[in-house]
């Protein structure tokens, strides 16, 4: 039980003490004494105030004290609250594309999470807050294809910590994240400074192009060897070029069997026929040649950082479909004509590349690897590469003393959980009635001889 306004209970206790004193100082007729010379005593009130050793009117006194205390307790607004645990944790779990290994997230989370903790997942959009009831069975949202703002996550975590403070004596914010620079914005430092303690950092391995997921898979037509396909060869040579696996379907003109990206794996499907044009493209009546093709590498989905340019004697045989809301260009010929498009499908996108690679070593050049990386940008924008935040930048916030911050219970607790107030007031009212009855009865009784 907790009192929102304990001063009223203290005042009620003071009033009760005064009541006891008043009952000790009851005005009553003192002991009678026969004195023949009483006429020489100065005239005065027959009743005199005297201090008794024991209070008078015990029943009335008890009723009055109980009434005062009940009124004080009611005004003090008692609320019933569960016992607070010693330590509560707000677990900020990074579900952005910065996470290299999801298993690592789960391992850390399982080791840290306890019943009653709050799990906040953050990526590039709001994710549900999970209250831990079974540490082993925490269900996390899929990893996003993008990275979001760490500032938002920290502020949300501090807000959640304030809520958790009602059920825990101390609250700790644990940040389970790789912490990449792409998540660090102008407000992150200020958000970290807002937290009075140190942020406990469980740093994960950041997803980079070197991670295991960034595999380029090339589906070749039947009978076609990997060694004879320049894309396959270039991909093999480029190694890990993107955050997400790239599946390049080189199977025929219709672009293979894959239907689109998978939200679970976030792999990128690229239809890049060995010859001809992707399905839906118009075959150019007169083939021409182009010297270069440019693809833009979108970083963080916000700004164009660099362009990947492939230079060579390209033979242009197709015309890209008209661009609309579902179809947009992702690569252009040097003359500005669209060379690759991205079509939106129900759960992602499919990229179609109408570029026939010329013979030669084009696929072996570094620029080809960057071109592949540009093609591996997630459908809804995103990052293609991430840079971990330097430890020196984090040290001021991880070395600020105790990570567990003591929390007072919030006064803005739900008052509907305090049904005692009306009962206390009703009890006080009943006692007042009883006091009135007792007082009336005593007044009706003949005055006892003092």
């Amino acid at each position, binding site marked *: 039980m907790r009192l929102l306004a304990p001063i009223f209970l203290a005042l009620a206790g003071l009033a009760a003490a005064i009541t006891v004193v008043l009952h000790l100082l009851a005005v009553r007729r003192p002991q009678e004494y026969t*004195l023949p010379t009483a006429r020489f005593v100065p005239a005065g009130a027959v009743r005199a105030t005297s201090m008794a050793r024991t209070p008078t009117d015990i029943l009335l006194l008890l009723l009055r004290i109980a009434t005062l205390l009940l009124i004080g307790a009611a005004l003090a607004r008692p609320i019933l609250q569960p016992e607070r645990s010693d330590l509560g944790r707000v677990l900020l779990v990074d579900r952005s594309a910065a996470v290299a290994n999801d298993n690592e997230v789960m391992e850390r989370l399982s080791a840290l999470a306890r019943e009653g903790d709050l799990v906040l997942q953050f990526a590039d959009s709001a994710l549900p807050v999970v209250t831990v009831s079974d540490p082993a069975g925490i269900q996390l949202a899929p990893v996003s294809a993008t990275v979001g703002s760490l500032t938002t996550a920290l502020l949300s975590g501090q807000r959640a910590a304030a809520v958790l403070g009602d059920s825990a004596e101390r609250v700790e914010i644990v940040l389970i994240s790789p912490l990449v620079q792409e998540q660090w914005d102008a407000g992150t430092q200020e958000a970290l400074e807002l937290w009075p303690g140190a942020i406990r950092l469980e740093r994960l391995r950041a997803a980079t192009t070197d991670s295991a997921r960034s595999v380029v898979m090339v589906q070749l037509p039947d009978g076609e060897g990997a060694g004879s396909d320049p894309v396959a060869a270039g991909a093999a040579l480029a190694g890990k070029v993107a955050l997400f696996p790239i599946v390049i379907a080189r199977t025929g003109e219709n672009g293979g069997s894959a239907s689109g990206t998978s939200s679970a794996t976030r792999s990128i499907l690229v239809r890049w026929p060995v010859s001809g044009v992707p399905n839906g493209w118009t075959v150019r009546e007169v083939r021409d040649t182009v010297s270069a093709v440019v693809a833009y590498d979108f970083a963080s989905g916000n700004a164009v950082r660099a362009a990947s340019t492939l230079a060579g004697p390209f033979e242009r045989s197709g015309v890209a479909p008209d661009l609309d809301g579902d179809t947009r260009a992702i690569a252009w010929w040097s003359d500005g004509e669209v060379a690759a498009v991205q079509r939106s499908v129900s759960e992602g996108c499919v990229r179609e590349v109408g570029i026939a690679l010329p013979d030669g070593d084009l696929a072996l050049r570094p620029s080809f690897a960057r071109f592949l990386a540009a093609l591996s940008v997630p459908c809804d924008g995103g990052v293609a590469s991430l840079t971990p935040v330097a430890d020196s930048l984090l040290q001021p916030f991880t070395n600020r003393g105790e990570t567990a911050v003591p929390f007072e219970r919030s006064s803005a607790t739900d008052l509907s959980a305090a049904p005692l107030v009306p009962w206390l007031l009703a009890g006080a009212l009943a006692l007042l009635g009883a006091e009135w009855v007792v007082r009336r009865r005593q007044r009706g009784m003949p005055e006892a001889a003092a």
Partner: protein
Amino acid sequence: MTVSKSPIASHGALLDAVRGLRWPATRRVSGGLPGAHRSRMRGTSSEFSEYRPYRQGDDPRRLDWKLLARSDRAYIRLADDHSVLATYVLVDASASMAFPAGSNAKWEVAQRIALALCSVVHATGDPVALLVPGPRPVRLAPRTRSGTVSDIARSLQSVTPDGSTPLSPSLDMVPRGARVVIVSDFLGDAGNLLSRARERVASGGEVHAIHVVAREELDPPRGARLTRDPEQDSVRRPLSDASRAAYLDAFGQWRAELMADWRAAGAGFTALVTDEPLDRVVRRVVAPVDRSMSGSPT
């Protein structure tokens, strides 16, 4: 066989202490019977007092013939007569004398001082009478026979102080020439009593007032009390430590005024406190000394 205890047995020490005291009258008495007090009558007793020139109407038998023969002057011989002086002891037995409750010290002292004075008077050979007004009044006529003191003691012992019967009517019953001793706390009809006493003194009588004050009246118990006058139930006053001083002042002033009034009236006035040795009080009463020295409010 039971031996009846004499009513004066319990007062033996006091009576022994006052034995031998004489209580002469302060004025010549007008009594006829021979006694111990100088009489206003100039008679034929053998105790020569003086000569006085013969005046017409004097008894020629009282002429000193020898002097007349020697000096040819007619003188008559005057001789002092002595007569008895009846003493009436008026004892207040009102409810205010039954104080303090339990010991009734005021009443006990009043009856003891009355008995002691009666004893002194009786030893002088004067008749002594007892008057105790009250619901059951006691009146013993003046007598000199033996056993009078015992009768008085018995009568006093039979009285229980109660009520608020005034004393002044009883004073009217006393003959003019008699000596009156009033033993009282003067909390009743003190005004009327003083007025009657003044008249009596003015007419040649002798009045002695003995004011009985209880020690508890001079030093009432401390703490808050509601005091009640036993003779006037309507008088109820709260006595506390705060009002105690005012009470003592008022009581002391009243006693001083009382003594001054009685002495101004020509009466004797002796104040006694219940814890005083009574034989000394008796000596103060009967001693023919300057009354201004006898007794003062405590």
